[in-house]
């Protein structure tokens, strides 16, 4: 069910009415039922996977929790034990808990790997087989990707790791855990919530709150505005430019880079706005996933502002554990002894970051273009880290830091870097992407910007006006948002201003939105991940 379909709007309306009508103790059960209906509509056979993940995580969580409970009881009952004895007992319990978590991680990441990456793996094996002139290549497996599998697997594994770490006790109610895993607004494209964060409002009894409803509705509308008015309108041109690389090379590559950046930004942030808004009208708080990423002054800052929940997940559950992993510490010691303190300290970080960015790339899609994209991010990040002395030298010579001009330069540079490597996502072919980027420098067709060629890629001049107007509005809202909540600011305005703005927003979506007959219904881009 597309978020942008009439069916979905009816679905949400029905849920909303029922949610505040049923006795409060049934609210979370209703949410669970609706989440599973949503998932069932996406594909009944996918229910098996999400139930398997939920079930295995539930059992592992309960087992780990029981071990910790028993440990606590045992230690309370045996206070006379020495420190060493206690430590030894805890280590024994941890070892048993480790078996459960390991099994759970292997099973669930195994499912994800098999479904999402098996054909990619086969393709790579076949590539080697071809090179060996062996004609017996492996056959591909016909398997469909369950809705939101990357999101719910990561979210669930985050939960079980936290339980293992003892951050919070396991959820004993299977239904509640099932709701945490399947909560439908965030199932399609995240954010990847943490259990302790989401559970606070997801399972509580929520009363209708007009302000929350109003803010939530505004957030939903703002999401629809970005998705339907901008992202889905520009989508036609993006598809045209990707669809014929022989025709649309040179300067068109730059156009595609800009258009895809606009589309992805409005699509993804719009989708998250809808998710957060839906949750909010139900009294549930879902974490923010973006903080005006387009204003980032460097790549590291960009990744702290863009898809925050994914970055946080990798940092907490992969980067840090990897950095303090025993073999990594040994490697660090080895590197220091061989290459000196400076390089020796950096090498483990570089290695951990490499692994994280390789997996980040692969998380986005089972193909080399995503992996290369991840690794280019890695190179930019590590490169900027290594260039810090140069930056210091530069700023000591030129007093530009803090000036508006330099800030704008930094923002433009960051966006250019981030956008340029996203072309890998567009062309989905690593050598092809580099060839297309190369054509920008070799093919002199910059006249397309003035000879009307840009009106022949699926967009009329009216479309350009709508997109430009929409982006200006997005920019203004983002600029205002730096000083505080735009919705709270609006709430302080006279009623006539608020209502007018509200109606204008609705009417602009209804009129300028790319939906209905004549427009291709488009799923959110991050849905495919």
């Amino acid at each position, binding site marked *: 069910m597309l978020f942008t379909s*009439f069916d979905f709007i009816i679905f949400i309306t029905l849920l909303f009415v029922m949610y505040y009508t049923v006795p409060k103790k049934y609210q979370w059960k209703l949410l669970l039922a609706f989440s599973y209906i949503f998932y069932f509509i996406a594909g009944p056979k996918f229910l098996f996977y999400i139930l398997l993940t939920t079930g295995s995580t539930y059992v592992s969580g309960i087992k780990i929790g029981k071990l910790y409970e028993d440990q606590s009881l045992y230690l309370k009952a045996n206070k006379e034990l020495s420190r060493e004895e206690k430590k030894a007992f805890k280590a024994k319990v941890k070892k048993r808990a480790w078996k459960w978590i390991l099994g759970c991680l292997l099973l669930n990441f195994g499912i994800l790997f098999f479904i999402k990456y098996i054909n990619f793996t086969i393709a790579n094996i076949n590539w080697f087989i071809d090179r060996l002139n062996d004609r017996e290549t492996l056959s591909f497996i016909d398997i469909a990707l369950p809705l939101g599998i990357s999101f719910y697997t990561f979210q669930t594994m985050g939960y079980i790791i936290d339980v293992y770490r003892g951050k919070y006790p396991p959820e004993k109610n299977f239904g509640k855990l099932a709701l945490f895993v399947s909560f439908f607004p965030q199932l399609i494209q995240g954010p990847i919530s943490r259990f302790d964060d989401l559970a606070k409002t997801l399972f509580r009894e929520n009363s209708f709150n007009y302000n929350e409803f109003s803010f939530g509705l505004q957030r939903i509308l703002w999401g629809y505005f970005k998705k339907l008015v901008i992202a889905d309108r520009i989508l036609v041109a993006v598809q045209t430019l990707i669809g014929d690389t022989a025709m649309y090379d040179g300067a068109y590559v730059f156009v595609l880079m800009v258009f895809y950046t606009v589309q992805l930004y409005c699509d993804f942030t719009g989708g998250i706005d809808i998710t957060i808004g839906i949750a909010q009208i139900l009294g549930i708080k879902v974490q923010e996933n973006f903080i005006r990423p387009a204003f980032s002054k460097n790549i590291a800052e960009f990744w702290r502002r863009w898809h925050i929940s994914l970055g946080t997940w990798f940092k907490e559950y992969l980067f840090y554990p990897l950095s303090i992993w025993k073999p990594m510490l040994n490697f660090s010691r080895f590197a220091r002894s061989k290459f000196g303190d400076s390089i020796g300290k950096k090498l483990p970080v570089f290695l951990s970051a490499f692994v994280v960015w390789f997996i980040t790339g692969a998380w986005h899609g089972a193909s080399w273009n995503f992996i290369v994209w991840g690794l280019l991010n890695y190179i930019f990040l590590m490169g900027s880290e290594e260039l810090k002395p140069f930056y210091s030298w530069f700023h000591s010579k030129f007093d530009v830091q803090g000036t508006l001009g330099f800030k704008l330069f930094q923002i433009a540079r960051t966006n250019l870097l981030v956008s340029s490597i996203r072309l890998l996502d567009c062309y989905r072919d690593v050598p092809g992407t580099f060839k297309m980027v190369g054509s920008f420098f070799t093919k002199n067709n910059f006249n397309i910007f003035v000879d009307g060629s840009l009106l022949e890629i699926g967009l*009329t001049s*009216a479309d350009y006006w709508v997109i430009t107007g929409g982006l200006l509005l997005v920019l203004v809202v983002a600029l205002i948002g730096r000083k505080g909540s735009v919705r709270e600011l609006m709430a302080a305005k006279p*009623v006539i201003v608020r*209502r007018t703005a509200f*109606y204008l927003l*609705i*009417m602009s979506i*209804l*009129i*300028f*939105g*790319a*939906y*209905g*007959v*004549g*427009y291709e*219904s488009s799923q959110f881009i991050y849905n495919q991940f």
Partner: protein
Amino acid sequence: MKKIISIFLTIAVGLGGFFSVQRLLVPKYTKGIVEGTLIEEYYPEAKNHDVIIIGDCEVYENISPITMWEEYGITSFIRGSAQQLIWQSYYLLEETLKYEKPEVVVFNVLALKYDQPQKEEYNRLTLDGMKFSATKLKAVNASMMPDENVLSYIFPLFRYHSRWSEVNSEDFENFFGKRQMFHNGYYMRADVKPVETVPSGRILPDYDFGDNAYKYLNMMVELCEENDIELVLIKAPSLYPYWYDEWEQQMEDYSRKKGLKYINYLELVDEIDLDFAVDTYDAGLHLNVTGAEKVAMHLGKVLSEEFDIEDRRSNQQIAAIWEKKVEFYNEMKKNQYEELEQYGYIKSLKGE
């Protein structure tokens, strides 16, 4: 109290804005493709017709109700639109019967060739003009293509929102209402394009009309029986779309079985003196006004003689209404001939 007024005003302004924008953006069909206006012209009419004619372009371009009035005093109205599918005809009839009970319903059988919804654009031409009702929803439900949504028929803004960049003077001029364009559902064309060749029908894999089409024909028969209305089936004298012998046989068998009058005007071309060198405006697909008058002459005769439709010309009240219709009809015919004389084409139809 203040809050209630504020809420009321907010809702009123919102709805007012929504419906105003919707009214502005829906196509007005007063220039070019004018067929989209056919269905809605029925509602302001006095609902006292003796005969209701339903079907596709083979009725609204091939039969002149004004001629039937002038010659036989029959009051009739055509409820037809472009590629009007049989279920749309059925539901239009169902809707019509809520307003009035005619003596006879005439249905053109070409629509039986379609067993499933065909094209969203044609659906719109017929259904957008219907007033909102449960019958309309049933018609929409029966007609929708897979990518269509019923909500866009209830709120056409969802369908036509992208017209914002095409809004022109036609939309503003017709914002509050449209001028009358048709003659009791008849679309007048005075121009001539003679038939030169008649292409033969291509071979079909199956000549049987579909079950769905028959289902609605049966429903139409039952609806007429329930309302004590005579149903007459006709095949208008259009040379193509090709009318196959196998189709003809099915209609003959069906009408015989159901005891219905069936007239195939393709077989009466000589009898009604139809000349495809002068009586068609598009080389045989549809008749022009002279052709439509010839068909109306014959159909009127059949209706008055075989179905005893009363001659209403002596009823002063009705005659006064129809006098204006005749005047409008003659005026338009005269104008079209003048335009043909002067420009070689009917300028007013192009909205020039």
